[in-house]
């Protein structure tokens, strides 16, 4: 399940522009974002990272949707795998804007959750 921090309307707009064939939930009050301990951008970490292209991508609209100045540019992403009892099997919290784990690593975590 994909979650963004926009409003429901912005989420619908984003999904349409990205032509995502799956639903996207939203967390405009950051309930989950805070509960799952996701990070906020640190300028020092960002400058020191090789994976620091995310801010430019956000502003340039490289991903199809250009972030506006009323949006939280400091938010960072993350991935979690939960089993059917809600036990956490995998955690990744991005420390810089463009930090993503290899797809194979995430998929392996998903595979481990399957019976």
């Amino acid at each position, binding site marked *: *399940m994909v979650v*963004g921090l926009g409003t*429901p309307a912005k989420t619908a707009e984003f999904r349409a522009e990205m032509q995502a064939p799956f639903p996207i939930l*939203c967390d405009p009050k950051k309930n989950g974002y805070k*509960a*799952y301990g996701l990070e906020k951008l640190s300028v020092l970490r960002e400058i020191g990272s090789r994976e620091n292209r995310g801010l430019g991508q956000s502003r340039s609209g490289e991903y199809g949707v250009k972030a506006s100045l009323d949006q939280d540019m400091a938010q960072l992403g993350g991935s979690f*795998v939960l089993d059917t009892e809600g036990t956490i099997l995998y955690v990744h919290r991005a420390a810089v804007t463009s930090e993503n784990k290899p797809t194979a690593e*995430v998929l392996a975590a998903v595979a481990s959750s399957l019976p």
Partner: protein
Amino acid sequence: MSDDKLTVGEQAPDVTLKDETGAEVQLSDYWRKQPLLLVYIRHFG
């Protein structure tokens, strides 16, 4: 990063989120059906 954040083996928070229509949804409604990959994305919000 602080050390008190959720980690592997702990219970996931059952937070309330919204769908595109604004209807509230409970995260546990998803993980009870099948294992859940939860991905928080950047770029808007």
